[in-house]
C-alpha cells in the first residue's frame, strides 16, 4: 500500500479550495470594476459636460478666455484628458486656430509644466493629490516608472511646444527605451531647430552602438520632418571615419529629399536644395566613398543637386564595381529623367538582373524615345538576359498589344523587327495572351495574329501605352521566317 505523507492531503485540499476561491474572485473582478467605473462616471458626467462646454466655448470664441480659464482651473485633472482628446490624440487633429488656443490653454493650466517635470522626474513641485498618488504608485512599482515619463513626452510632442525641446532632448538618454523613443518622436513633431543636432548625435550613437540606443528608424522618422537647411549639422557625420555613421547620415538626407520630392513642387527643386558644404561633400567625397553603401546613398542625393558635376558623378556611379551602387545610380537617373540613353543602355547587359531591370525601367520612363531605344537594343543585342529584360519591361508597360496593333497597321513602313525577333528568340509565348479569346495552349493561336480584325480590337493596357502607340515603328507583314517560327512556336 502507498501512504501519502501526513498533511499532504490537507495541503492539496487547501490548494484546491484556495484556487477555486481565486477563480470566483477573479471572475467577479470585472463586475466590481464595472460598478466602480459606472459610479465614477456618473459622478463625473456632469463635470465632464461642463468642462467640454467650457473648452468648446473657448475654442469657438463664445466664452471669454479668462473666465473659461478660471473655471477650468478648478478641475485640473479632468481638464487634462479633455484637452488631450481635443488635441486629436484619439481623433483627427483640430484646425490651426483651435490648435493654438488649446496650446495656450495647456500652458496656462500648467499642464506643459507638469509634463516637463514628469519627464525630468522632478516631483517636488506641488501638484493635485490624485496626480501625486499616481506618480508615487508608478515610480514605486519596479518597471512601471517609465509609463508617466513616456506619456509626458508624447503629450509634449502632441502639443508641439517649442520651449520643451531641451527637456525632451535630455530624455533621449532616459534609462527606458520607450521614453527615449517617445522623446525622439516628440522632437520630430516639434521640429525645434536646436534639437536637430541632439537627434543627429543620437543617430551617431545608434550607428556606433554606444550609449542609450534608439531605433534607427525612430530617429530617421524624427529627423526627416526637419527642413533640409538643418542638414548642415550632418557635415561632421558625413566625414566620420566609421562608414556606418556616414551611411546613416547620408540615408537620412536621402529620405528627407525623397519626402520633399513626393510633395507637390514647383517645376523643379530649388538650386541650392542642400547647404553648400553638405552638397559639396556628396559630390566630391561621398560619391567616391570607399564604402559602397555610402556611394549608393550618394547617388540618391546628388541627383537632386542642380550642379554641373551631378551628371558626371552619376555616370561614374553607373559604372561602379558594386551592383547595388549601379542600381541606385540607374534609379537616380530615372528620377532625373534627363540622361544619355547610351549610358543606361550599357546597363541593359549588366551582370546583375536588378540593374538590368532598373535600366530598362529608367529607359522606358523616357517615353517614346526610350521605348524605341529598347526596341532597337532588343534587335541589336545577342544577350539573352538583356532581351528578356526588354520584353518584360514592354510587358510591364502594357506595350505588347500596342506593338501588335502597330504591327498590323497597313502600309506603315518597314517591317517591324520586334515581333519577328520575339518569335525568333523564343519569346512568342508573350504574344499568346495578346490574342483575345484564344485557348492558352492552342499552338495555332498565334497564327491569328494575322487577323487584322482581332488586332484592331486590342486596347493598350495603360494610357501611357496608348500615348506611345503612334510613334512606334509598325506596319507590314511578318517575314516568312518570322511567320514560320510563329507557327512553330
Amino acid at each position, binding site marked *: *500500500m*502507498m501512504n*501519502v505523507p501526513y498533511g*499532504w*492531503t490537507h495541503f*492539496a*485540499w487547501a*490548494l*484546491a479550495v484556495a*484556487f477555486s476561491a*481565486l*477563480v470566483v474572485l*477573479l*471572475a467577479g*473582478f*470585472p463586475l466590481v*470594476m*464595472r460598478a466602480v467605473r459606472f459610479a465614477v462616471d456618473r459622478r463625473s458626467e456632469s463635470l465632464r459636460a461642463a468642462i467640454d462646454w467650457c473648452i468648446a466655448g473657448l475654442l469657438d470664441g463664445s466664452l471669454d478666455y479668462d473666465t473659461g480659464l478660471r473655471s477650468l482651473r478648478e478641475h485640473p485633472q479632468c481638464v487634462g484628458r479633455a484637452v*488631450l482628446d481635443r488635441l486629436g*490624440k*484619439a481623433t483627427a487633429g483640430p484646425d490651426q486656430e483651435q490648435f493654438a488656443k488649446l496650446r495656450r490653454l495647456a500652458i496656462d493650466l500648467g499642464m506643459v509644466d507638469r509634463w516637463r517635470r514628469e519627464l525630468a522626474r522632478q516631483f517636488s513641485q506641488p501638484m493635485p493629490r490624485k496626480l501625486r498618488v499616481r506618480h508615487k504608485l508608478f515610480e514605486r512599482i519596479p*518597471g*512601471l516608472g517609465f*509609463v508617466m515619463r*513616456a*506619456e509626458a513626452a*508624447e503629450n509634449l510632442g502632441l502639443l508641439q511646444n517649442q520651449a520643451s525641446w531641451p527637456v525632451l532632448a535630455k530624455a533621449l538618454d532616459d534609462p527606458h*527605451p*520607450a521614453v527615449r*523613443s517617445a522623446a525622439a*518622436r516628440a522632437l520630430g*513633431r516639434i521640429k525645434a531647430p536646436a534639437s536637430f543636432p541632439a537627434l543627429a548625435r543620437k543617430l551617431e550613437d*545608434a550607428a556606433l552602438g554606444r550609449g542609450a*540606443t*534608439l*531605433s*534607427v*528608424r*525612430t530617429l*530617421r*522618422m524624427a529627423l*526627416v520632418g526637419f527642413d533640409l537647411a538643418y542638414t548642415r549639422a550632418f557635415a561632421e557625420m558625413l566625414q566620420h571615419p566609421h562608414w556606418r555613421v556616414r551611411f546613416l547620415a547620408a540615408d537620412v538626407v536621402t*529620405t528627407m529629399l*525623397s*519626402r520633399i520630392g*513626393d510633395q507637390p513642387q514647383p517645376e523643379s527643386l530649388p538650386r541650392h536644395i542642400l547647404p553648400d558644404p553638405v552638397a559639396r561633400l556628396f559630390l566630391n567625397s561621398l560619391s567616391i566613398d570607399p564604402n559602397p553603401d555610402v556611394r549608393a546613398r550618394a547617388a540618391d542625393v546628388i541627383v537632386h543637386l542642380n550642379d554641373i558635376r551631378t551628371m558626371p558623378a552619376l555616370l561614374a556611379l553607373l559604372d561602379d564595381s558594386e551592383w547595388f551602387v549601379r542600381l541606385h545610380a540607374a534609379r537616380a537617373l530615372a528620377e532625373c529623367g534627363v540622361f544619355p540613353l547610351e549610358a543606361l543602355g550599357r546597363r541593359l547587359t549588366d551582370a546583375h*538582373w536588378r540593374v538590368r531591370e532598373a535600366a530598362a525601367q529608367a529607359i522606358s520612363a523616357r517615353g517614346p524615345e526610350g521605348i524605341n531605344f529598347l526596341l532597337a537594343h532588343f534587335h541589336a543585342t545577342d544577350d539573352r538576359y538583356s532581351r*528578356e*529584360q526588354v*520584353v*518584360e519591361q514592354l*510587358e*510591364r508597360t*502594357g506595350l505588347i498589344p500596342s506593338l501588335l496593333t502597330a504591327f498590323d497597321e497597313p502600309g506603315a513602313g518597314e517591317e517591324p523587327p520586334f515581333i519577328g525577333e520575339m518569335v525568333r528568340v523564343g*519569346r512568342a*509565348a*508573350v504574344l499568346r*495572351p495578346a490574342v483575345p479569346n484564344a485557348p492558352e495552349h492552342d499552338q495555332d493561336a498565334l497564327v491569328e495574329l494575322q487577323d487584322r480584325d482581332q488586332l484592331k480590337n486590342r486596347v493598350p*493596357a*495603360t494610357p501611357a501605352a496608348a500615348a506611345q502607340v503612334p510613334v512606334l515603328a509598325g506596319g507590314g507583314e511578318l517575314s516568312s521566317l518570322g511567320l514560320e517560327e510563329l507557327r512553330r512556336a
Partner: protein
Amino acid sequence: MHSLGIDALILFNAVLAVYFLAGIGGYGALMMSSWISVWLHKRRHSTETLQELRDSSVAPPVTIVMPAWNEQDVIVDAVRGALGVDYPGIQVCVVDDGSSDETLERLIAAFELAPVNLIARHRLRTRPVRALYVSSSFPQLLVLSKENGGKSDALNAGLNTVRTPYFCTLDADCILERDAIPRLMRRIVSDPVNVAASGGTVRVLNGCTVEEGQVAKVNLPRSALERFQVVEYLRSFLFGRTGWSRMGGTLIISGAFALFHRETVIEAGGLSSDTVTEDMELIVRLRRWASDHGRVLRTAFSSDPVCWVACPDNLRMLGRQRRRWQLGLCQTLWKNWKMFFDPAFGIFGWLSLPFHALVEALGAVVEAAGYLLIPFVAWLDPALLNFLLPLLLFSLAYSALLSVAALVLEELTYRRYGAMRGFLTLLPYALLENFGYRQLLLCYRVAGVVRFLTGFRRWEKVVHVSPAELAAD
C-alpha cells in the same frame, strides 16, 4: 508483480509532479508576464495615433503574400480586404497553389487580370510557376499561378516575386483589420534591434458579420464548440504568446498573419516543407540562422494587431487542425533539439523550448496517462483518492483560473466582444472547458504525438465556415 506496479506508480508520480510543477510554474509566470505586458501595451498605445507612421516616408513597404488552394468561395473578398489595408504603398501577391476549383478564374474575373510574362527568378526553389497575372484596375495586385506544392511552397513562390523589404503572410480565409499592418510595423520601427518577424493576435471570426472583406460587427459564435475555441484563442494569444514574447522566448507566430523581413527569411532558406507547421519551424530556424551567422534579431508579438480567422465548427475539422498543430510542434522541436539548453539562445533555449517540449508536446501523453491511471489507482488503493481528488480539483481550478484571467484581461483591455456582455457570455465556457472540451483536445493532441512517432507527415486541409457564408448570414 504488485510491488513492481507500485514502484512504477511511484516513478510515474514523480514524472507527474515534475510535469505538474513545470506546467503550473510556467503558466503562472506567463500569466503574470502577459498581464503586465498587455496592460502596458494597451496603456502606451491605446491613444497613440498610427497616422505618424502611415505618413512617414520611413515606413518600410510591405507586400501581403496570400497563398490560396481551392479557396474559390473566399478568395475575392480576401483579396479585396487585403487591398483595403490602411498602409502606404501596400502590395498584394496572391499565390494560387494549383487549385482545382475556380479560385484563379474568379480572381481573373473580379480583378480584370491579364497574364504577363515576367522573368522568373527563383531564389527559393518551388514547384513550377504556370503564369503571372496583373490587374489594370489594381496595379498593386499580382497573382501567381503555380503547380500544387503546399502552403510553404506557395509562400516561397510568392516570396520570389516580392520586392518590398517586408512581407506579410495572410491566409485566404482570414480577415485582416485595416490598421493591423501599421500596428505590426510599429514594433519593427521602434525596436532598436532588427525585428525579423512580428506577429499579432488571431481572433475567432465565427459569428461575426462580414461586409466587403472587413469585419463589420463582432459577435460571438452560437455553438459551444466555437465558443470554447474563442476562450482558447484568447488564452493562447493574450497569455501564452504575449508572455513568451515579453520573456524573449517566442516559439510561435501564427503564419495565418505575420510580418517578416524578406531578406532574412530568404537567406535563412525560406519556408520549409519538412514540418506541417511551417510558421513555427520558420521562427525557430530564424533564431538558429541568426546565431549561426552572428546576427542579432528579434521575433516580436503584439497583442493589438488583429486578424480574424474562421475556426472549425465541427469535431472532424477541429480534430484535423489540432492533430496537425501537435504534429507540427513535435516535428519542430525534434528538428531543433540541438538548440535545447544551448546558451547561445538564452531564454529561448533554456526555458521556451524545454517548456514547449515538456508541457505542450510530451505533456499531452503525460496528462492522458494521468487520466487513465486515476481509476487504476482507485482500484489499487482507494485511500489514495483522498489525495488525488483534491489534487485533480486544484488542477481544474488552476486551469479555469488561466482561462478566466484571459477573459478578465480581455475585458479590462480590448473588449472586442462588447463590454461585459462578451465576458459574461464566455465566463461559463471558461469554467466548463475543463469538463469535456479539454479532454477532447487531449485526445487530438495524443493522436498528433502518435502521428509524429509513426512518421505521418501529410497536411490535412481544414474546411470551415467561410467569411462569405458569414457575410450571407
